[in-house]
């Protein structure tokens, strides 16, 4: 048992040392490098998620997750306006496994969503992002740094997301 406490305390120390470090330098995290797939089965490295220097929204979702679908539907209704006004791009990373992953494309098209859709079948990206529960959403600035993260969905929270994106675009002007 003693060994275990030792291990836990040591790890917390490691973590805290770093927490101070990041506070000093105020460095923002970027995306991890994880190989996931595109809808047509090609490998895609998550480091390549980008939008020509404009903001990016990443949503982790699944076809079986009701609040995730509700959130993406709410965004889909206003997405055209968001793109026109800010040039933002949304990547919807599905964590559906082989049980339902083949039906992600028909699902997305059946809802006329125009997001970039990626497949994280064995949750490698979800783990690398330390996501405990979906829906999970984050916003990246033009440099690919994660500036905002949020978990769960309540009707109306899409407006908060858009406020973050707009602020990024205005700061960049």
């Amino acid at each position, binding site marked *: 048992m003693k060994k275990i406490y030792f291990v836990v305390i040591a790890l917390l120390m490691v973590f805290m040392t770093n927490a101070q470090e990041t506070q000093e330098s105020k460095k923002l995290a970027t995306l991890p490098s994880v190989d996931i797939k595109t809808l047509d089965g090609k490998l895609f490295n998550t480091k390549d998620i980008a939008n020509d220097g404009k903001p990016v929204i990443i949503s982790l979702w699944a076809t079986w997750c009701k609040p995730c679908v509700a959130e993406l539907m709410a965004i889909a209704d206003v997405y055209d306006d968001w793109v026109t006004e800010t040039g933002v791009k949304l990547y919807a990373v599905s964590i559906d496994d082989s049980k339902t992953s083949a039906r992600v494309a028909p699902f997305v098209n059946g809802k006329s969503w125009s997001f970039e859709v990626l497949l994280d079948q064995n949750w490698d990206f979800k783990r690398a992002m*330390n996501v405990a529960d979906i829906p999970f959403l984050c916003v990246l600035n033009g440099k690919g740094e994660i500036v905002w993260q949020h978990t769960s969905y309540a009707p109306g929270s899409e407006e908060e997301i858009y406020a973050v994106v707009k602020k990024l675009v205005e700061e960049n002007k």
Partner: protein
Amino acid sequence: MKPFLSFGRISIVFVFAAFCFLNSAKAQLFLGNGKISGDFGFNGMYYIPDSLIGAEEVAGKVRANTFLNLLYTNGGITAGVRYEFYSYPLIDFEKIGYQGQGLTYYFADYKNDFLQVTAGTFYEQFGNGLSFRAYEDRQLGVDNSLLGTRIKVTPYKGIVIKGVWGIERKNFDFDYTKRNDYIRGIDAEIALAELIPGMADKGFTTTFGGSFVSKYEKSTEDYYFVIHPDVDSLTATATIPADKIPQNVATWAARFNFGYKGFRLETEYAQKINDPNVTNQYIYKDGQALFFSATYSTKGLGVSASFIRADNMDFRSQRGEKNNSLLSINYIPAINRQYAYQLLGNYSYASQPNGQIGAQFQLNYQIPKKSKLGGKYGTDITLNYSRFHTLNYDTVLLAVENGTMSGTEGYSSSFFGCGKDLLYQDIGIEISRRFDKKWKLILAYNYIIYNMEILQGHGGLFHGHNVAADLTWKITNKHALRLEAQHLYSKDDLGSWIYAMLEYSISPRWFFSVGDQWNYGNAESAQRIHYYNIAASYIIKTTRLSLSYGKTREGILCVGGVCRAVPASNGVTLSVTTSF
């Protein structure tokens, strides 16, 4: 003999390495460029016994599941560790044996464009998982990670070769010196569209892949079984001697994916040889699995047809293990549509790796936006049909004579034949429509047939009609009310149920809800129980706090076609999750 792979030794080495690394002169610089992230979860419950619903007294009254993940990333290097404290876990986890504590996950990984190497614990999947899938599902208490090494090579863009070698996790049993089993596997995938210039431009994608996975398990004990168990005068004991039980069991799989514009086809076939085990009653027959899916989609329309056949494909690290997904090496997906409706939860189909044949069809269509029928925002319609059967098989003569399949080839099955037993059927329609900025409605109807006898081990066929409505009223930009109502009509099992839940949310921070499931149609009037629940949650960025009080009925919890039993419970639940 001193254990080589002892848990204590590994963790000490790991922490020592971390310390050295931090205390070295370069540590500051190194850490400065690196990043530590993590997530934490606590899910605790205070149990109150309730004899009416069958909620037993829980030793200690308060139980909790806790874990902490830490990840360190610096350029191509990633290292991670997870500590789980499940010594006094939630009662449903205790029931499936997921109890204990320790460092359950620790690894170091280096990755560049050509190579990725991992040492320690890892998750991995080959193809659709028919031959190999090491994965986790925290909600279910499934963690089939491997402790060992993994190598991934990308010799040329479009070609990926993976090799894995390791021992599979068995709940909190970390004494690897006592383990006599390990897994090794190799997988290769070639994406032609990336190799042949111009192919992708014409809209074609083609991928080929193949894998070979082998399990070694020492065979030291003879297997005893009873012949003619039903005929008293003939009953005798027979033996499969230890040296006749294969120590190496192999599964190979081949897959092919093809896509052209909106059309896409995916297929994988797997074969397993030499695997007498407790789930198949120690038969020597080969196992097979075939997965096939064809989809077509274009803006506003998506159609899909999928097929799965699995025969004797339960593949585990230990031949004596049969509980849930414990020590499963592969993953046979159940391809039916998965629902989030409360009342259908207890009748969710569970994949049957040892014998199932089934198909699923789905149509997703959007009545266009701004059309007369579609309304301003369009109306989404989903139609769905799925049906699963047992296999059509003939028991071999010797097995008939013996009155048991053990020690024989077992049976022969026709590849595309359906057995007489229906396992599951679902016909469903779902309509989702937003009326204006304030109102949104989802309506769904399902007719379900569920074989309780085979899938849960008691009862007959369950037939149920389920109607669900989900109405959202966005009162202002931040305040919203959501009503979820459901009615499950049935004459089988526990009869009819009604469910209603009202949720009030203040975006993005607060959720409050009250709900009740009422088994009003139970044949016994004393069993017409209300299972009510009240909950509040508070969310700040990636931290979620939630407090609830309520009753949970006895039943099953299924995620992705994998299910586990859930005992009845009553009490107060507090959960905290955060990621940083």
